[in-house]
């Protein structure tokens, strides 16, 4: 630049200035571009971005509703919610998960199997979702964790509600149980409630809990919370309370239920107690039973294995799901069908030589030697099979089937329970359509004594007995009130049967229990006020084969357990003014003698509203009954102290 003339200098500077202005111009253009971009983002798309900002900031959290509680007819708690303390871990926040778990193990006892499950769950779920590390921890342990949270990154002590069944096994088959919602549960529902997406949310799986899930669950509340970028809640913006699930009061009498359950004990058996007038189910027992609390948080494989491998099938609700040939308890139906058709009079007799030839086959009476001449009451009293073969051959299966239907055999009752069985009320149509065979006269003979194709559940037998007692088509009822609103008692129309015919059958049933030659005489009630009418039954699982007979097996008790006959007993009481109907089935009980005393004891317990006095029992039984009462009182669990009558 040295030695340049002023004009040259001016020219050089001029070029610089031109380029400077050009540069400045482009800069301004660029900045204008930025301004327009800003305008586009901030004004044209403002609404969209503001919405996104709100979505960022506001998180909608569900507030799980408290599940409805379940009470018995007297307001005793059968299922309730209790605070459950658990410790969860968010793997993302924990950093070194193993180190945190090791530290946690010094404060809380960690179950290794649960820990395994948690680790598997962690691997499958995204790292920001909490995983339960320890469930059902005690309050002390929870406090220890809470105090130490600064040293335990990612660990949160949580309080939730968990189902609890204070009566454990006693109500298991009625209530069923809840459990953590599974992928399978979700797949079955078209449009699942958002609540179900909450990990380990408990829903009803089986039984009443499952069938009345919609009533019990309630409606989730929501709260809108402001969260920061890592999802921590900064403050609650507003909250819409959900609706608690509806409380349900059952018709069950807990005290009677617990007694029945204890009385059945370890037998594979079922008992149903029903109010004759209202149809209220007072006890629906099935044994052996299980503790539904095991299922609430998810059952362990070992526990589940124990339950499923047991040949007494504790998981089955035999009282409503199990179907059995009703045996001689079906004879009232045969008798009524014949009476209504005018085939037989009260005093007409049939001669029983111990067997009867029907289409070249010999049908035996249970009493090999025969009963001799029998009229209706005598035949019921002594359960003469030949008498009923004779009636059945005259009246035919069609009329018998119609009669059975009036008493609820083959009818699926609409109860909020799992797998309520339909049973089987066989007919010509049924056999030809289902089995593709013609009905033969032997089938009628078998059906007349409740064998062959006839199948009924203990519930159906109880309903049948209640209808025999009242002459009305009483339907069973399980739910007494929902959220304090009393459910109507369905009105029971009169059965289409002549009351005098019914009275004659009732006399026969009275004789079963109260006549010296009655099959249940030894297990009678001697308190006059509470005399009962009943009918014993034995249903064959299979015949004793000729080969077995050759080996010396003549008695049922000599067979293996699972081939012995079922024992049945149905009854109602008091005879004069029927209040309750009872049906008891003891699987493989080697005949009715296993069921009769149970039916009698449950009846007394129900009528006295507690332990009956020994004076109600026949004298020779009193010693053993006293011992039995002592034993059972130990077994019947203490009731919930909190009595909350919602009705």
């Amino acid at each position, binding site marked *: *630049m*040295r030695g*340049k003339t002023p004009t040259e*200098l001016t020219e*050089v*500077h001029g*070029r*610089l*200035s031109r*380029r*400077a*202005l050009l*540069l*400045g111009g482009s*800069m*301004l253009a*660029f*900045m204008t571009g*930025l*301004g327009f*971009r*800003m*305008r586009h*983002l*901030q*004004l044209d*798309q*403002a609404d*969209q*971005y*503001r919405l*996104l*900002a*709100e979505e*960022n*900031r506001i998180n909608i959290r569900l507030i799980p509703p408290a599940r409805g509680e379940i009470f018995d007819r007297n307001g005793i708690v059968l299922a309730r919610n209790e605070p459950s303390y658990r410790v969860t871990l968010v793997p993302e926040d924990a950093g070194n998960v193993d180190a945190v778990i090791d530290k946690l193990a010094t404060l809380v006892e960690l179950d290794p199997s649960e820990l395994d499950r948690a680790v598997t769950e962690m691997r499958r779920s995204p790292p920001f979702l909490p995983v339960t590390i320890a469930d059902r921890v005690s309050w002390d342990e929870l406090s220890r964790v809470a105090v130490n949270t600064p040293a335990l990154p990612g660990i949160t002590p949580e309080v939730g509600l968990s189902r609890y069944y204070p009566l454990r096994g006693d109500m298991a088959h009625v209530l069923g149980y809840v459990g953590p919602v599974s992928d399978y549960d979700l797949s079955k529902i078209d449009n699942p409630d958002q609540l179900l997406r909450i990990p380990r949310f408990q829903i009803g799986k089986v039984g009443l809990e499952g069938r009345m899930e919609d009533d019990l669950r309630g409606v989730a509340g929501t709260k809108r919370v*402001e*969260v*920061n*970028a*890592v999802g921590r809640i*900064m403050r609650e913006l507003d909250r819409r309370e959900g609706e608690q699930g509806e409380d349900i009061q059952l018709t069950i009498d807990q005290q009677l239920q617990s007694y029945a359950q204890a009385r059945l004990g370890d037998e594979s058996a079922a008992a149903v107690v029903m109010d004759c007038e209202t149809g209220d189910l007072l006890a629906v027992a099935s044994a052996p039973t299980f503790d539904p609390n095991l299922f609430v948080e998810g059952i362990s494989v070992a526990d589940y294995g124990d339950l499923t491998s047991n040949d007494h099938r504790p998981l089955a609700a035999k009282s409503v799901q199990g179907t059995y040939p009703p045996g001689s308890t079906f004879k009232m139906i045969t008798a009524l069908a014949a009476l209504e058709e005018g085939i037989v009079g009260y005093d007409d007799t049939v001669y029983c030589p111990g067997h009867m030839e029907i289409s070249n086959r010999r049908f035996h009476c249970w009493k090999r030697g025969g009963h001799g001449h029998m009229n209706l009451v005598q035949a019921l009293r002594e359960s003469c099979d030949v008498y009923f073969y004779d009636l059945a051959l005259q009246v035919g299966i069609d009329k018998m089937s119609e009669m059975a239907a009036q008493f609820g055999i083959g009818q699926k009752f609409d109860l909020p329970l799992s797998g309520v069985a339909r049973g089987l009320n066989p007919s010509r149509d049924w056999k030809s359509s289902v089995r593709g065979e013609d009905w033969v006269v032997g089938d009628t003979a078998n059906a007349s004594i409740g064998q062959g194709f006839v199948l009924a559940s203990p519930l159906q037998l109880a309903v049948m007995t209640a209808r025999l007692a009242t002459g009305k088509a009483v339907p069973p009822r399980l739910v007494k009130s929902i959220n304090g609103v009393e459910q109507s008692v369905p009105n029971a129309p009169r059965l289409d049967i002549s009351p005098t015919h019914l009275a004659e059958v009732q006399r026969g049933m009275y004789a079963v229990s109260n006549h010296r030659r009655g099959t249940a005489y030894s297990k009678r009630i001697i308190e006059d006020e509470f005399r009962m009418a009943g009918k014993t039954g034995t249903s064959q699982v299979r015949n004793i084969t000729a080969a077995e007979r050759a080996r010396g097996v003549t008695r049922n008790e000599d067979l293996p357990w699972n081939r012995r006959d079922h024992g049945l007993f149905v009854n109602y009481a008091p005879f004069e003014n029927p209040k309750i109907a009872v049906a008891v089935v003891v699987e493989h009980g080697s005949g009715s003698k296993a069921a009769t005393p149970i039916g009698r004891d449950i009846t007394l317990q129900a009528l006295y509203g507690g332990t009956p006095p020994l004076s109600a029992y026949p004298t020779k039984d009193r010693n053993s009954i006293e011992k039995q009462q002592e034993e059972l009182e130990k077994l019947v669990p203490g009731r919930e102290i909190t009595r909350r009558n919602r009705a």
Partner: protein
Amino acid sequence: MSYLEYNVKHVPTGLRKVLHLNWALLLLITAVAGVGFLMLYSVAGGSFSPWAEPQMKRYALGVFVMFFVAMVPIWFWRSISGFAYLVTLVLLVLVEVMGSVGMGAQRWIDLGFMRLQPSELMKITLVMSLAAYYDWLPTEKTSKPIWVLIPVLLIIIPNMLVLRQPDLGTSILLLTGGAIVMFLAGVHWGYFAAVISMVVGLVVAVFRSRGTDWQLLKNYQYRRIDTFLDPSSDPLGAGYHITQSKIALGSGGWTGRGFMQGTQSRLNFLPEKHTDFIFTTLAEEFGYVGAVSLLSLYALIVLFCIASAISNKDRYSSLLILGIAGAFFLFFAVNMSMVMGLAPVVGVPLPLVSYGGSAMLVLMAGFGLVQSAHVHRPR
């Protein structure tokens, strides 16, 4: 033009220089810095600590530095330009050597009272040395290849070192800043056309090299480019910065959500809310009006510099002022483009507003040079 050629007798001396400072420019700078204090106060949740207070102290120090630099005659700065460039280069090498034991991308030298980033310093000293070079070079030689090669080397050498750190943002700033000075000095159009086509070729090479052994950028830089091209592809991962930044900007609307009411920054959705992304907080809280106001302040600063440069007959001064103004422009243009989703996230702070010591002091020193050139301009 040596300093002897300046019309010294018209240049103010002593404290009278203060009266001849470009006060309007200082006022604009202070206004921008004030916006910075306000925003740093806001992102800290209405607190002077941890950002607003140190930033104010640094600004005070910066003003002192500016005054100091402004008081020293411009011909002194011209004479040490080459030396300053060399010193900065040595510092850059030192960072490279020491930084290799640091945390991946160490860019500073700890001076005890502050951390000095030589790459920041280089933005000024490069402009100084280039201005001095073209002041010295006879104009007819400006476009001769050999004389073009020398400034290109001056730009490329520190650039390689910065890229190794790696600091893509500074690298782009140095390249473009250097090119601006060369353009102003009157280098022939053809060179720029050639370089631009080479850059296009390089971009293609960068993308082609991806995944091969000789890939030119680090993986995280590739990811940033990916997410720049399609931020919605990974809204929670690498695209998070851009997505959240656009949400904050967009939710501002006309007048914004109000001071300290920005949910995006207050709830930590915005990354690096006090440094590179501070503009989004401003846009969220003061809306379009606030954002355009800041943009206008920046524009005014650049315009005042250009005006000062054109009116300055001294070639070194003009080039220096324009070079610094260009660097300043690049700072905020890249930063704003970045937060608005127009450029990849390269890590360039918003000048005078973002929290950071080195950048603030270096910028203030740069404006000191502008002031010095203004005060000591030939009259």
